[in-house]
């Protein structure tokens, strides 16, 4: 009787072990992370908990972009060094994008440049100054990074001009097509100058230099803003690009679709689409600030509109966020609604672009988040 019991126990053990062995052999790996799957529609594996308000995983790497002000232009070497140090603290090779936002276009009649953010007077921050500040940022990055990681530095401006009731004031400069075109041309030439310096300095394996502009529809007319784009395009020698880190203010979404929306000033869908994607040097990294997800819906809908006109889908390389800037300015009353983390913004943009097969993206590879000094 005891022997019979032992035999049964042994048999059961063998059956369990063989089943386990069979199970482990036949079990194929599944790719739960959307980035590891070939493309949408993604397959989800249970148990899986969905939440719209997930905290970012600490290991998700994003860079810090900067509003350039009188407080930080003198310490760009340190800022580049700090960004470089991050790569040494992370495993593997990082490939990243940083935007340095130097503020609104300006000229003193002799040189082009910007008025720095937080600059109280009309003191020109010339393209020659910007070249020096940016070179030092790159030197800082090279001195402190891991020796293998790569960075694309976007030298940024905006399309901001000070209008009162739609009229450009005497205190504004960026108000005519001629000035916008000339500024875009000068910006492309400045970007090429810095990139050539990168190449001759032997940094070309790890550093790329691009232009960048924060084109916001409520900041200026389309016919002026897009002249800047044309000026840049005409002088980029097809060697440099620019990132449009702007907005699609008032644009419709899939929740309130309208293929021919009445937008602010003279903006139309074709003109927004041109400035962000259809212009040869333009790559969109839109501001995805809103916790509600409306910014992501606006840009995804614009991409869908484009495909309906026979254009290609918009390729978003990053969502642009202001999470750190909001932490730096606790008194800002709008921030609680506009402080997506980089991870939340990326997920919103991925989810919305993947709402339609024709706009779907397999990945949004970069994350960058702006901060004040």
């Amino acid at each position, binding site marked *: 009787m005891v022997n019979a019991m032992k035999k049964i126990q042994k048999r059961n053990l*063998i059956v369990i072990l063989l089943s386990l062995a069979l199970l482990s052999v036949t*079990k194929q*790996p599944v790719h739960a992370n959307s980035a590891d799957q070939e493309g949408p529609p993604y397959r989800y594996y249970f148990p899986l908990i969905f939440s719209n308000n997930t905290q970012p995983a600490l290991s998700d790497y994003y860079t810090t972009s900067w509003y350039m002000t009188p407080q930080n232009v003198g310490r760009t070497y340190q800022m580049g060094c700090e960004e470089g140090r991050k790569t040494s603290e992370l495993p593997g090779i990082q490939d990243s994008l940083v935007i340095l936002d130097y503020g609104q276009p300006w000229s003193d009649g002799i040189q082009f440049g910007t008025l720095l953010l937080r600059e109280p007077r009309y003191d020109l*921050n010339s393209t020659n100054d910007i070249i020096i500040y940016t070179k030092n940022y790159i030197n800082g990055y090279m*001195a402190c990074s891991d020796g293998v990681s790569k960075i694309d530095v976007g030298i940024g401006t905006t399309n901001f001009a*000070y209008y009162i009731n739609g009229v450009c004031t005497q205190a504004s400069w960026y108000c005519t097509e001629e000035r916008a075109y000339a500024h875009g041309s000068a910006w492309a030439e400045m970007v090429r100058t810095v990139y050539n310096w990168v190449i001759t300095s032997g940094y070309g394996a790890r550093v790329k230099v691009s232009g960048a502009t924060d084109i916001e529809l409520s900041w200026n007319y389309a016919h002026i803003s897009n002249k800047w784009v044309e000026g840049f395009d005409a002088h980029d020698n097809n060697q440099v690009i620019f990132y449009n880190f702007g907005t699609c203010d008032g644009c419709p979404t899939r929740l309130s679709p309208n293929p021919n929306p009445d937008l602010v000033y003279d903006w139309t869908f074709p003109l927004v689409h041109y400035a962000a994607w259809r212009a040869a040097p333009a790559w969109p990294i839109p501001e995805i600030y809103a916790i509600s997800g409306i910014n992501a819906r606006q840009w995804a809908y614009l991409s869908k509109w484009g495909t309906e006109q026979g254009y290609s889908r918009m390729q978003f390389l990053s969502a642009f966020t202001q999470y750190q800037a909001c932490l730096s300015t606790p008194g800002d009353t709008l921030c609680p609604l506009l402080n997506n983390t980089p991870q939340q913004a990326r997920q919103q943009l991925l989810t919305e672009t993947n709402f339609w097969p024709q706009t779907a993206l397999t990945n949004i590879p970069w994350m960058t988040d702006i901060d004040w000094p």
Partner: protein
Amino acid sequence: MMKYKFELIFFTSLIIIILVLLLNMDPVRGANLPLKSTPAGMLTVQLQMVQSSLQEAKDPQEKIALQEKMEAQQFALNVQMEAQMRPTVTLKEICANRVPVPQHKAMVEGGIFEVRDDFLVSQGIKINNMFQGEMDGTLVEVYAGSSLDDPNQGLVILAIDALGVWLRVFDPSATGSLQIIEANGSRLSLQTITGNTRLYFDIPARQFVDSVDAVVPPMDLPVAKDLFLDPCQGK
């Protein structure tokens, strides 16, 4: 015989399980991992993106633009590949490549000044005027105005560029937009633009005070951000 047969099956199964577990440690791959950066390099990724866009585009103008997009990325990729074939730059070379930074703001005579019309407007603030002066060898600026959303919410901003200080201080009485009318050393006299209320701001204490001679303890200034570990020091 039965005993050996059992042991043979037992150990064979165990080895298979261990081998499979070792080879396949994380069967749900990616569930707990961050998104990959881009092993192929972003330039390659961008080129692939443009190539796929070219296949989709029907508009002839867009096709030309996409060709140009591709050209720019190909240029950068060529730069990258050529640079990879050369010797890596040394830290010494990088350090020697530093560029002297121009002084953005010269130390100017102190006083009360106008500001540009759109100063801080894009950040939701209307500034009426500013004070500029030197304290302990450092340039200090104070801007006075109000929130654009609520013109009654007066405020000042203390800016010390060299120390990276940018501090917004709201007027607790919130009786109107502020302007600076007088500077007595490090204490500023302000009033609302309607002229109804007068108050004072103490720069070292970074706070509003009730009178021109009220005593308040100064706050410590932050350590200058320049004090960082520079790998180029001594190179």
